[in-house]
């Protein structure tokens, strides 16, 4: 078996050439598939918008698009954060509750201290979220307990904490009239006609996506998700990376809480309930494999955009809005089935290449 002996010594200078070129070509092929996958969602999004435009030419009117962007902003930020966690073969189900806590905390801060600058409010929300993420990440990384279970627990606990805070401070709801005008204008602010909240979300996606793509600490997340044991053996600080992913995801969930507060301006303790499934759905539709190791923040953001657009497009198409959830479910299933087919085909292609090469 010449092929296997050639593979054995990866450092062997004489024979390293061929397999390395091969693996580089394989990586290029995989990269191309990821791009194709993301273009696929983009195409689906464009198709959906196109069909809706035919049914209702006013669908892309300024106000409609702005509403769409505002609705998508929260989900896009959450999806970008969740991508980091899912890539490491973990999941954070507590993001809906973290959003709720952060939104309530920021609301309380602004009501008690109306002079608080918006930047401070945003940072406060992110700190609250980061602390929640630290708790999640510490339990997952240190106690080595599956993240699905831990974050299911903190999903309940953090929501309960918000309720406890609200009932003990006797402020069950925060209304728009209680909030300072500077924060309210932040929620409605636009730059070049585009809502600031959406621009923040886009910035988050770009930063997270670039970090995952181009930085060593970002690439290592993929390594951890593909093969945790191999990652550990090759010297990646697995525990620290996973912990960091959870903290960053928590901070982004906190940011999403601030965006939520700025968008709706009326808050109670149920803000963000059940959002975790939408977030995971957006990531999965966007090509982030639930088993870890693949996907990108821009893909997840496109997934979030697609899910939001479906919700607003259905009524425009004359379809009963009750079909929304069913459509989302079908989309998730289609996405994972497509991913599976692509992966199988990629594996077959790479195998074929290896056989020819040896």
């Amino acid at each position, binding site marked *: 078996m010449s092929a296997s002996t050639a593979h054995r010594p990866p450092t062997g200078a004489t024979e390293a050439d061929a397999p390395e070129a091969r693996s580089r070509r394989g990586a290029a092929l995989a990269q191309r598939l990821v791009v194709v996958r993301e273009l696929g969602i983009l195409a689906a999004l464009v198709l959906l918008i196109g069909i809706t435009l035919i049914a209702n030419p006013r669908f892309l009117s300024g106000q409609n698009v702005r509403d769409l962007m505002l609705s998508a902003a929260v989900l896009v930020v959450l999806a970008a954060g969740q991508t980091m966690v899912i890539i490491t073969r973990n999941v954070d189900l507590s993001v809906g509750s973290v959003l709720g806590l952060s939104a309530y905390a920021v609301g309380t801060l602004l009501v008690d201290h109306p002079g608080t600058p918006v930047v401070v409010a945003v940072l406060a929300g992110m700190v609250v979220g980061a602390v929640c993420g630290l708790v999640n990440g510490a339990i997952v990384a240190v106690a080595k307990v599956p993240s699905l279970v831990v974050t299911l627990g903190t999903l309940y606990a953090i929501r309960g904490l918000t309720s406890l805070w609200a009932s003990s401070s006797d402020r069950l709801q925060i209304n728009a009239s209680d909030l300072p005008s500077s924060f309210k204008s932040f929620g409605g602010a636009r730059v070049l006609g585009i809502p600031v909240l959406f621009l923040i979300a886009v910035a988050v996606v770009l930063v997270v996506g670039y970090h995952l793509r181009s930085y060593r600490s970002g690439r290592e997340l993929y390594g951890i998700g593909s093969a945790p044991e191999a990652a550990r053996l090759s010297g990646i600080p697995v525990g620290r990376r996973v912990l960091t992913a959870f903290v960053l995801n928590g901070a982004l969930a906190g940011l999403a809480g601030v965006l939520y507060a700025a968008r709706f301006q009326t808050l109670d303790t149920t803000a963000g309930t059940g959002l975790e499934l939408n977030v995971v*759905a957006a990531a999965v539709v966007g090509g982030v494999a639930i088993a870890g190791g693949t996907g990108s923040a821009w893909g997840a953001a496109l997934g979030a955009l697609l899910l939001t657009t479906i919700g607003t497009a259905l009524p425009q198409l004359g379809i009963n809005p009750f079909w929304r959830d069913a459509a989302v479910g079908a989309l998730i299933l289609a996405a994972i089935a497509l991913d599976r087919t692509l992966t199988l085909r990629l594996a077959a292609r790479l195998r074929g290449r290896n056989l020819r090469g040896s």
Partner: protein
Amino acid sequence: MAVDTSSAPVAGNATPPPARAPRGFTLPSGSVISTFLVLFLVIASFSVDGFASTRNLGFLLLDVVVIALIALPLTLIVVTGEIDLSVASMVGLSSAVMGKLWFAGLSLQLIIVLCLVLGAVLGAFNGLLVTWLGLPSLAVTIGTLALYRGLAFVVLGDQAVADFPRSWTTWAISSLGNSGIPNAVLPLLVLVAVTAVLLHATPIGRALYAMGNSEDAARFSGIDVARMKFWLFVASGVVSALGGVFWTLRYGSARADNATGLELQVIAAILLGGVSIFGGSGGLLGVMAGALLLASVRNALQLVNVPSDVLNIVTGALLIVAVVAPQVVARLKTHRPPARRSAGAQKGNP
């Protein structure tokens, strides 16, 4: 020698792994949580006014019925290393279909049969996607969670159908004689017994544990992994549909949003009961104790006027403690390897 009779060939192994065999593991995990349950029940009945009244215990059991019922097939699924998050949506869809068909004038007996068939179809769809297409069950059932709940809304919209025959709805909430035990507990106990025997005393049950520990090894030893998983998902669908029928009768109202979020409570009960989310360990006794413990803690706290939202903290904390505690105990028990680990580290970076 007492040591030799317990574990046969300890060939050249200085450190015998303590109680690593699956059967040795299931029993204690169930008994720990059961002990907690008994302790809690005793303490609560003495310290919480009205907790031990037959009326209150009846309500408590009524709340547990659907959770315990759905937990039966779901436990088997989790033991094999898979998961079904769509159970609560199947409850909702079965409830919505029940309401729609009753509104259309069908007889209730026929409707119940149709609902169970529907559950089988929904479960089979999950099972096909997982086994035939080889998709991860977590992702598949997040998809069908949305899909089935969406279909429930398509069927019934935001309406409610509430005019079910009085004789059926009173059966669902009334108790056996004066015992305070709800009628539904008896058929539930039968199902619990059947499932417990299946999981703990048959080759099928052992195959499920084998699949959870190592799917490849199970396949090589002749277990038809795909077929077994498929039928587990079908069972999960049928039982969830049954849960939907009972839920509808118990609240006397068919709604598309019935039992929203129930999947998290069921999974919390299963994990609290000591079943590993990775599969391969845990037992039904623990799961039933876990379901009862969650419900009793919530019930007792409600009786002492803790706001219901705050109870979530307790649920969440219980769940985390239940999974972290065994890890800590195991870490303390095997606090020997530092020497070996440092040796490995030296080898790792030369």
